[in-house]
């Protein structure tokens, strides 16, 4: 099962339907497939062992992804926001590569890599004019389709590999072919080097839903684009949703009446924010998706009905589901295990393990899959009695106070219920008495008085156990996030270390 099958089927079913819009130019599935074939010929001719994209989202991302698949060469989207030294190290690991995008930067950072370089425009033009050249290429099904460097903050980034079979299984298991009607359009604002960006391309292609790229996120541009394109679908990370709602609340009200499905993921969604979104978009279906690079994107989701039921409910455990990532996909097995690898009962917190055809769990250097096919995600979580999954941070983020495991999330949720607290992060701080204790960094909302330390401690004590009470409270201007809205806990921990 080669990834390019998805585009081939779309072109077979309706070659003239527009599949992608970027800076105005519409690309039909037929022209995209022709360009992907041409790209495959260019890639095969280059002799490169990887196809890298160093660029924002554009048609080149789609042509590069499917073209690399046809040519049987791994596609490696690179994070253009990386510092020079970090990017140079990644370029060395994939040389000689065919690189699409910022050719000047690659020339400067890896002058001796033997790379074949194309600007976006050159690549698209070469692909379009070379479609006949792909006739001799024999498609392969067994290789690596996509390689994504995970954002390592302490060690070197890991090269997660996704095989054709992983990605195709994910799409076949989650998307119904041709399920979109011709009017549907999805705004894609996640970057191409993130698994969500890859999944958006593949899912929309197989559903035959028009992709509208927003290459660089900005709330006003997003709102304008969604209205102008009559977008029906969108995927956002929590930070994006927060900014979009901020603009709507500030009076920016374009016509979003076509928008009927909003999916989100990539980081923890504050309950208050999703509640506000559910009120602002009463007719939209909300879906919370949880997944990892190593699992080919989504492995669990909280669907529209669960969102509405929780939004309206006064029953605590139903209401709490707004903070859940829903239930595992039917095609994925999921278990919570303790440190000895034993499966845990509902309500008990441990590490999330998953198994399924879409789960790769494989890195360039090694596989993390155990003998029975399970992948340890390093995410901590627990299941409720009805199988809803709640995340409790990275397994490495757990605060161990005197032998008791404390999840940062439960403390953060309580702090965020304080009217003056706009953002909060709980981390482990060194404690002579307990080994580790709770430290919290909080952001005070504008136009609110800063609450006292004791007031916040009392709030936590009254709602949780005394072991959860923060020993140290830091007031900060803002918390550190990466561009996908993921909180950088290591940097928060650093705030508590003596200078």
């Amino acid at each position: 099962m080669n990834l390019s099958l998805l585009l081939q089927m779309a072109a077979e079913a309706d070659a003239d339907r527009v599949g992608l819009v970027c800076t105005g130019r519409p690309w039909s599935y037929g022209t995209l497939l022709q360009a992907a074939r041409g790209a495959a010929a260019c890639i095969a001719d280059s002799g490169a062992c990887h196809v890298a994209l160093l660029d924002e989202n554009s048609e080149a991302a789609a042509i590069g992804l499917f073209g690399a698949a046809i040519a049987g060469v791994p596609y490696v989207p690179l994070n253009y926001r990386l510092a020079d030294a970090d990017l140079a190290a990644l370029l060395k690991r994939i040389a000689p590569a065919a690189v699409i995008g910022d050719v000047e930067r690659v020339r400067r950072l890896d002058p001796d890599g033997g790379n074949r370089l194309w600007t976006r425009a050159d690549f698209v033009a070469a692909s379009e004019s070379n479609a006949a050249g792909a006739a001799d290429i024999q498609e392969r099904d067994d290789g690596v389709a996509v390689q994504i460097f995970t954002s390592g903050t302490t060690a070197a980034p890991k090269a997660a590999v996704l095989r054709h079979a992983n990605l195709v299984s994910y799409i076949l298991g989650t998307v119904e072919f041709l399920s979109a009607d011709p009017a549907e359009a999805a705004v894609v604002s996640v970057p191409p080097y993130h698994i969500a960006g890859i999944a958006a391309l593949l899912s929309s292609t197989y559903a035959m839903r028009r992709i509208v790229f927003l290459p660089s996120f900005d709330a006003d541009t997003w709102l304008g684009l969604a209205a102008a394109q009559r977008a029906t679908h969108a995927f956002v990370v929590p930070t994006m949703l927060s900014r979009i709602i901020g603009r709507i609340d500030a009076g920016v009200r374009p016509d979003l009446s076509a928008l009927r499905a909003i999916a989100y993921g990539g980081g923890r969604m504050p309950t208050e924010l999703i509640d506000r979104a559910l009120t602002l978009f009463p007719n939209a279906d909300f879906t919370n998706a949880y997944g990892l690079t190593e699992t080919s994107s989504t492995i669990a989701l909280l669907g529209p009905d669960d969102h509405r039921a929780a939004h309206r409910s006064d029953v605590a455990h139903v209401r709490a589901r707004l903070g859940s990532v829903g239930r595992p996909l039917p095609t994925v097995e999921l278990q919570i295990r303790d440190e000895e690898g034993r499966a845990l009962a509902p309500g008990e917190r441990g590490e999330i393990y998953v198994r399924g055809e879409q789960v790769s769990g494989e890195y360039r250097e090694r596989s993390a899959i155990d003998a029975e096919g399970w992948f340890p995600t390093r995410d901590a979580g627990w299941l409720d009695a009805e199988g809803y999954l709640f995340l409790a941070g990275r397994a490495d983020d757990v605060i161990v106070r005197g032998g008791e495991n404390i999840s940062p999330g439960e403390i953060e949720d309580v702090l965020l219920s304080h009217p003056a607290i706009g953002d909060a992060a709980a981390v482990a701080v060194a404690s002579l008495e307990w080994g580790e204790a709770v430290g919290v960094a909080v952001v005070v909302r504008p136009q609110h008085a800063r609450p006292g330390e004791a007031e916040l401690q009392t709030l936590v004590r009254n709602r949780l156990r005394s072991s959860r009470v923060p020993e140290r409270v830091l007031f900060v201007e803002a918390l550190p996030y990466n561009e996908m809205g993921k909180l950088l806990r290591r940097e928060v921990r650093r705030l508590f270390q003596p200078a």
Partner: protein
Amino acid sequence: MKPGKKLKSAACDTEVMVIRGSSGGVVECAGVPMCEERPAQRQTMNPALAAGTMIGKRYVDATGTIELLCVKAGQGSLSIGGVPLQVKDAKPLPSSD
């Protein structure tokens, strides 16, 4: 029949990909065994097995051990040992990407 393997109809345009397979059973389309390469000469369709295949649909046998994805539509119907395969009901998931 290995997952990922593609089969073509000898009597119409239908093409399928094996999603789930087992060793036994020859898949037919329009009553004629399917093969990896389409024969130069089109075979005659069995009119009793000509309801057509639809692109993107999954076809399963009664035991659920064989599952095929139609990747190209055609006029024939899929069967194994003369027993027609059924379209698998899809439980739609909300779009999450």
